[in-house]
């Protein structure tokens, strides 16, 4: 049985598992059964994908007589698919493990169980598809199933709004993809990827396809300005589904972008890349700024997803720029950085969303200003989330830094590019990425410091307890992956190298033979980094210092009330709040970029009512693009509404007039 057949079979089983759950709904073990079997199947998916990347087993393809009768359904299993299958498999397996525990708290579990495995299956199909029809069909199934999952808590108004916005945006995205594939296929209708790959296209046509892919895949991934649905929909779903959507589904969208732009289109003109780089860099900064201002834990995480997607797209744009100039080694570096970040983001974002889910289970709230002090109440969860927060803030020695480091190395290759505009722009974009990384650290200090440290701000947070062991195991696995990928980045890079080889025709030098688990992307004299040694040094010097101090100086310790400059206040409300922590950055960057406003209402002297500080931060994209667009749609719709109440004669005359207009048009055309 070839790899593609195996993966297809697993996908089919996953797809069927959803309806099966409906039949088994009376059984008490249905939830555990569904999650456990989904997890197992995902692990299978990942292991077959990993075999392709590590053991270099071969590619395979398959055509099934399904779908459109004259084409059939094409499927493929190559390095790129395999890499994303690994992403999907690991994410799906661990999140399913989490689901075993978390799913028990769901009060209407069938609303999740019926769609959850099928959602995983549909994503697998998107990755396996090798013709436009199968790809779009699976894509649409994936969108619809995730929409159904978003609507799990449909009793809440916010969720319904989120579902509606998501549906509209998903429809828009699929439309863009449809057009892109239409243009790719050409007038002859070559729907199979293999025939598309060989076609010759003009640079303009390629640019239009690229633009449509940015709209289609970008809207699913959350690229600014197509991101508006993401911070609504991702947090609205149950937390493990949020984790899947943020960690895996956005990656499937990135897969779509890479498949079409890098694989099917081939090298694009150099002037196409600055668009992608700039969009990516701006998305990164914009997303993390919004995350910095957000009070809702899960929404803040969703905004941070937008940031990471921006980082990945910027790296992909860099790869396009290098590739357009034939700089294969540099392109491979940027591409590897992008895929490494895809992996990293899958790991830490699912970890963080699972952590948020645990907090939600334990306290019943996602509002940061109702949390606090969880590090005492939920020690294990807190520790694991801390690992995720350090990793996502791109701090050494964890994995987020490794991919960020590769990306900066790619930025530093820019002098090799001959075009002036790109030469000047790439360092500036690098500066934006550095800004995004620094802001990410600030955002996660805020999320962690407000949510997990300090004193409990609500009774719920005061009585929280650690969650079940399945959830902890799942989060622990991801935390271990964060550390492993951070200290052994060479292994991940080597696993990505067949993908780079297949897509770009070039790859980074093999890293695993370097001493001390060092990574050396170009040459040793140029740059090298060893996460293992950094971790080792920090561990040795920290524990050495601690030992020396305790041994030779003092190890006594007294507990006393907090000092707080002599004004300790027992009420937890005197702590910094989420909004208070964001205030400096809100003033510095938020006022210009996000239009943040502060209104202070001071009561008159003698008036006992409290003073009020109202802060408004809005997503300007929503106000400036979507709201006007919605208004136009409603205006047009209201005008057209009159057409529903005409007499039959009028309807007939409308049809008649249209017919005449068409005929006249035809005459003028011909």
């Amino acid at each position, binding site marked *: 049985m070839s790899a593609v057949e195996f993966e297809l079979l697993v996908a089919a089983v996953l797809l069927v598992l959803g309806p099966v759950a409906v039949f088994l709904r009376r059984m008490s073990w249905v939830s555990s059964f569904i999650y456990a079997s989904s997890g197992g199947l995902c692990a299978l998916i990942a292991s077959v994908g990993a075999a392709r990347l590590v053991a270099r087993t071969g590619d395979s393809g398959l055509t099934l007589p399904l779908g459109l009768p004259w084409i059939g359904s094409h499927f493929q299993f190559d390095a790129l698919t395999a890499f994303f299958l690994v992403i999907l498999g690991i994410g799906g397996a661990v999140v399913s493990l989490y689901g075993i525990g978390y799913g028990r708290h769901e009060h209407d579990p069938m609303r999740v169980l019926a769609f959850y495995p099928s959602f995983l299956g549909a994503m697998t199909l998107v990755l396996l598809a090798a013709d436009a029809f199968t790809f779009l069909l699976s894509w649409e199934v994936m969108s619809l199933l995730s929409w159904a999952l978003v609507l799990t808590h449909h009793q809440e108004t916010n969720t319904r709004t989120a579902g509606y916005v998501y549906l509209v945006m998903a429809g828009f995205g699929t439309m863009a993809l449809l057009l892109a594939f239409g243009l790719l296929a050409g007038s002859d209708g070559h729907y199979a990827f293999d025939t598309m790959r060989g076609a010759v296209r003009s640079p303009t046509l390629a640019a239009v396809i690229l633009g449509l892919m940015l709209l289609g895949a970008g809207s699913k991934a959350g690229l600014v300005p197509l991101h508006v649905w993401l911070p609504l929909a991702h947090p609205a779903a149950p937390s493990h589904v949020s984790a899947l959507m943020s960690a895996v589904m956005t990656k499937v969208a990135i897969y779509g972008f890479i498949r079409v732009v890098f694989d099917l289109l081939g090298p694009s003109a150099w002037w196409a890349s600055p668009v992608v780089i700039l969009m990516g860099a701006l998305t990164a900064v914009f997303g993390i700024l919004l995350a910095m201002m957000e009070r809702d834990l899960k929404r803040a995480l969703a905004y941070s997803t937008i940031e990471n997607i921006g980082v990945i797209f910027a790296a992909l744009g860099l790869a396009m720029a290098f590739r357009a100039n034939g700089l294969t080694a540099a392109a491979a570096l940027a591409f590897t950085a992008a895929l490494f970040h895809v992996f990293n983001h899958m790991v830490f974002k699912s970890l963080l969303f699972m952590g948020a889910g645990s907090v939600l289970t334990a306290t019943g709230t996602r509002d940061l200003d109702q949390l606090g002090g969880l590090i005492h109440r939920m020690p294990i969860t807190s520790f694991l989330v801390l690992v995720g927060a350090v990793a996502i803030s791109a701090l050494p020695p964890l994995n987020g830094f490794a991919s960020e480091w590769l990306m900066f190395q790619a930025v530093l290759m820019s002098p090799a590019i001959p075009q*002036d*505009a790109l030469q*000047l722009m790439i360092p500036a974009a690098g500066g934006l990425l550095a800004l995004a990384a620094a802001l990410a650290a600030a955002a996660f200090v805020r999320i962690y410091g407000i949510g997990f440290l300090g004193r409990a701000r609500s009774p719920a947070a005061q009585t929280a307890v650690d969650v079940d062991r399945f959830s902890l195991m799942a989060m622990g696995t991801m935390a271990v992956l964060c550390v492993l990928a951070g200290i052994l980045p060479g292994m991940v890079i080597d696993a990505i190298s067949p993908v780079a080889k297949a897509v770009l025709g070039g790859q980074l030098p093999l890293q695993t033979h370097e001493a001390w688990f060092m990574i050396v992307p170009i040459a040793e004299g140029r740059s090298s980094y060893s996460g293992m040694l950094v971790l080792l040094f920090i561990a040795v010097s920290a524990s050495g210092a601690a030992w020396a101090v305790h041994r030779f100086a003092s190890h006594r310790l007294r507990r006393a009330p907090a000092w707080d400059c002599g004004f300790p206040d027992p009420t937890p409300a005197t702590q910094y709040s989420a909004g208070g922590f964001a205030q400096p950055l809100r003033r510095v960057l938020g006022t*210009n970029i996000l239009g943040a406003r502060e209104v202070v209402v001071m009561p008159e002297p003698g008036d006992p009512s409290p003073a009020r500080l109202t802060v408004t931060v809005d997503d300007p994209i929503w106000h400036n693009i979507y709201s006007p667009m919605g208004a136009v749609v409603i205006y047009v719709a209201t005008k057209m509404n009159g057409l529903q109440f005409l007499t039959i004669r009028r309807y007939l005359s409308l049809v008649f007039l249209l017919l005449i207009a068409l005929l006249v048009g035809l005459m003028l055309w011909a």
Partner: protein
Amino acid sequence: MGTLAFDIAHLLAGGLLLVSFMMIYQDRMFALLHVFAFHAVVLSLSVAWQAYNQGAPHLYVTAAIALVFKAAIIPIALRRIVKQLGVHREVETVVGVGVTMLAGIGLSALSIVLMLRVTAHADAFAREDLAFALSVVLLGLLMMVTRRNAVSQVVGFMSLENGLILAAAGAKGMPLVVEISVAFSVLIAFIVIGVFLFRIRERFDSVDVTAIDDYREVHR
């Protein structure tokens, strides 16, 4: 071109651009005048270095004129004006400093790319001087546009003129007569503007140019 002579020319011209940025950043009137004087000093050093390298003695005269007039007389005179007008407060800007700086960086990037493209065949000294000179000119303009206060607009104008002199010095061969007449016309322009400043002040009790705009709106 890695020679020391070129490096120094590059450093001085780049320094001029840096000082232009410093002017944009200043938010106190006197500090602005100090930086402007420094701008002129860097300019005269740069021109003198060009004179030494090109073996063109008349450029020394230009350098001296820049040093005497722009680094000494005009700043001192402006300082007195500012004192007499009593406007030695903060420089009022139309948009924030950060935005102006960003715009300035964009403008320098633009002029660098443009000049390097246009002057592909000129020699390196002239090319880098021209690239920086255009940036300095654009920054001077930017400063004039983004400041409300007439005095800082004058400073912007003068720094713009410094950029022109840098370009002229790099382009080898502006005759001395032209130099001197340019220098004098600037001086005259300065005097005229100075007189105007006092007139504006008498009339509107402020040197904030928006007052003039308001006046015009009222009398339309």
